[in-house]
């Protein structure tokens, strides 16, 4: 039985794009007015582009927008001068901008006028929750301290009986000031900070940061190092997707799936351990290369481990998705329609489960992905089953990709076990956008350098920032008892959101 239709999406464009990371001279980006930027961004997004980042750099004199067009590998950057303490909000017409504008209000005190639900993204103590009034309406408050080992976040449900009318998600308990730390730290420390943005996306954020800095310095990485990075990124995806499928089983009380997939997640982390000496890949990615090369012994060991895991994995994933009691829990639960996914600018497996055909690895390929393609998994139904199915397909394809790479990895110069390149100094007055498809979706790092080549602004967008509102929408008119399952099917990062 196939629970939902899945397809391989359109093939990659024939010419590999090199727009990612994209570096532009600040001088080539004229400072327009905010109204023009607003109109232009909204129009582009209506025509199929999506908002990657919207931020105000530290001196609070300008507004910067990054918009990506996925079907033609285009990344557009716009700047506008901010005149005064407020500007007309983009969110009133572009819901995808809502979290960015709440952050702008919080960090810089610049008011986006006309924002439909304007409260600071993280420091929200003085702001009331959205409330529904009426007979029989009751409120359920969950968190920020939860049962089980998860991060802190507050969920406020407005319910009529078991039905959820509205869910407001309030985060910020994990705020560490990462973006400010990036500005005040030494280059060597920045990569360690990037690795700690979200503990489960160590590799993804580290690659995004390293690629941004390398592009600022105009350095080209040896192909071999790019291959190791891609293998590490896919192993991270594998570990997390396998763990997520297991957690989904656990939430519906399906024991065989939970325990088997939990064990296999450990095997995937161990594969990362073989590669980097750390189960989460800490210390592997460095600006200019990778710390550890793959020698032929390690290659053989990795391949053998993965082949073993693959056998078990195929059997258990098939068992889980074909068990009627599991399917009946997954199907039709927490549906996010394609319209909502597009409007909110969702990314990653969550977006692909709602039929949005987007994947940075194909649409804006960087590093090894310019030469080696991972097929994109897209399903249509937008429910928990779709999100499980997309993960199951991505597991399969990532495994194939890693196997291919281990077999055909380009033999680079023998620079085993050392940092590859001496980092070249960053060019002055540049802006760089670096995109990476982490396991949760698109990770964006945007950096600006000043006239001396020092980093003057650093903006991080974790996929969770886009997707949290998607979870709230998935719950609308659903059952409150389905919340934990929906939450797990999104599995968003609290730390990545709070920074």
């Amino acid at each position: 039985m196939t629970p939902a239709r899945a397809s391989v999406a359109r093939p990659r464009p024939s010419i590999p794009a090199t727009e990612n990371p994209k570096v532009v001279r600040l001088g080539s980006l004229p400072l327009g007015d905010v109204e023009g930027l607003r109109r232009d961004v909204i129009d582009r997004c209506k025509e199929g582009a999506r908002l990657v980042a919207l931020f105000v750099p530290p001196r609070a004199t300008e507004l910067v927008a990054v918009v990506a067009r996925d079907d033609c590998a285009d990344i557009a950057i716009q700047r506008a001068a901010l005149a005064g303490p407020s500007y007309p909000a983009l969110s009133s017409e572009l819901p995808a901008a809502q979290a960015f504008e709440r952050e702008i209000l919080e960090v810089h005190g610049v008011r986006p006028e006309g924002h439909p639900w304007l409260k600071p993204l993280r420091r929200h103590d003085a702001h009331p929750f959205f409330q529904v009034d009426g007979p029989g309406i009751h409120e359920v408050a969950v968190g920020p301290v939860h049962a089980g080992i998860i991060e802190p976040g507050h969920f406020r449900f407005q319910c009529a009986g078991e039905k959820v009318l509205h869910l407001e998600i309030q985060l910020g308990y994990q705020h560490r000031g990462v973006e400010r730390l990036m500005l005040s730290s030494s280059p060597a420390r920045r990569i360690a900070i990037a690795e700690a943005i979200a503990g489960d996306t160590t590799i993804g954020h580290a690659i995004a940061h390293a690629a941004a800095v390398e592009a600022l310095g105009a350095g080209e990485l040896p192909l071999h190092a790019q291959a190791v990075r891609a293998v590490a990124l896919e192993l991270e995806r594998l570990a997390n997707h396998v763990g997520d499928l297991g957690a989904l089983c656990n939430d519906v009380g399906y024991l065989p799936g939970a325990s088997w997939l939990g064990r296999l997640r450990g095997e995937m982390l161990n594969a990362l351990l073989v590669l980097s000496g750390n189960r989460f890949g800490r210390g592997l990615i460095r600006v200019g290369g990778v710390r550890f090369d793959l020698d032929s012994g390690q290659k053989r060991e990795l391949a053998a481990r993965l082949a073993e895991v693959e056998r078990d994995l195929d059997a258990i994933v098939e068992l889980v998705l074909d068990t009627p009691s599991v399917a009946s829990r997954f199907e039709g639960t927490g549906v996010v329609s394609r319209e909502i996914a597009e409007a909110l600018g969702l990314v990653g497996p969550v977006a692909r489960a709602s039929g949005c055909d987007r994947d940075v690895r194909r649409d804006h390929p960087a590093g090894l992905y310019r030469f080696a393609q991972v097929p994109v998994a897209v399903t249509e139904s937008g429910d928990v089953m779709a999100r499980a199915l997309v993960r199951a397909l991505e597991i399969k394809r990532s495994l194939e990709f890693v196997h291919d790479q281990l077999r055909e990895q380009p033999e680079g110069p023998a620079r085993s076990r050392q940092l590859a390149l001496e980092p070249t100094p960053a060019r002055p007055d540049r802006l760089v956008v670096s995109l990476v498809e982490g396991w949760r979706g698109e990770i964006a790092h945007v950096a600006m350098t000043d006239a001396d080549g020092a980093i003057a602004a650093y903006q991080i967008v974790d996929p969770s920032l886009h997707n949290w509102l998607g979870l709230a929408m998935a719950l609308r008119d659903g059952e409150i008892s389905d919340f934990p399952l929906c939450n797990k099917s999104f599995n968003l990062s609290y730390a990545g959101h709070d920074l």
Partner: protein
Amino acid sequence: MFDTILHVALLLLFPPLVVGVVQKTKAVFAGREGAPVLQPYFDLAKLMRKGAVYSRTTTWLFRAGPIVALAAALGAGLFVPLASSRAPIGFEGDVIAVAYLLGLGRFFTMAAALDTGSSFEGMGASREAAFAALAEPALFLAFAIVCVPAGSASFADAWRALPWRMWLEAHPELFAAALVLFAVLLAENSRMPVDDPNTHLELTMIHEVMVLDHSGPDLAFVLWASAVKLFVFAGLLVHLVLPIPAGWRGAGLFLIGLSVVALVVGIVESMMARLRLTRVPQFLVGASVLGAMGLLVALMERAG
């Protein structure tokens, strides 16, 4: 006298073991070694030694909940057949007394949950009330099937009139009664697929969420009461399927039967995912329908 002592000893000593066997079975199916079978006893001993925490918003109802629940469950245990088909207390209509003793325990558990004023616990109480109302007809229909041959609403009479060889003849109503009893056992004791006793997710819980605020000896009473409840239901099922003689041999056979029921519960829990909360009523109504058909068959046999 000996039978009564044996009955009370079984009732006091063995309920946590049933829970232990279920948990061990689930652990083995999940590929884990699992906690020892005696773990529920260790848990109870640990909780009894601890102090309890009471919220300032609670009243005597909150403290009464666990005590009444345990007393009601143990009381119900005195009416049902365990080591032999004769229970220490029996009278015409004790079948109904058992159902409502369990109901009394549930009422107080729910009242204690509402007493905390927590939205979680109120949610759990509302779910428990809704599902209990649906489980009750199924339970009574199963009891009715068993009581038809004797024509008496007393467990002692019913089991005397229910010779074991009826299973060897064509009596489909007995299968129906056993299935319905098993379904009600799963629902009433917050087992899968109705409730997940292991989950940590408050929003999905039914029974467990009602007792989140109990601690120490109160929590021990709650756990003990639910173990006794499971024991009573499993005992009824064993008696329906196996001929249990009086005395030591009967007690041994009964315990074996009990372990098999616990094993089956564990296997069911390991093999399937939990039902969506909105599907639980269908599950319970389905059990009632099966019970009604069984009762029809039983009445027709009695008439013709």
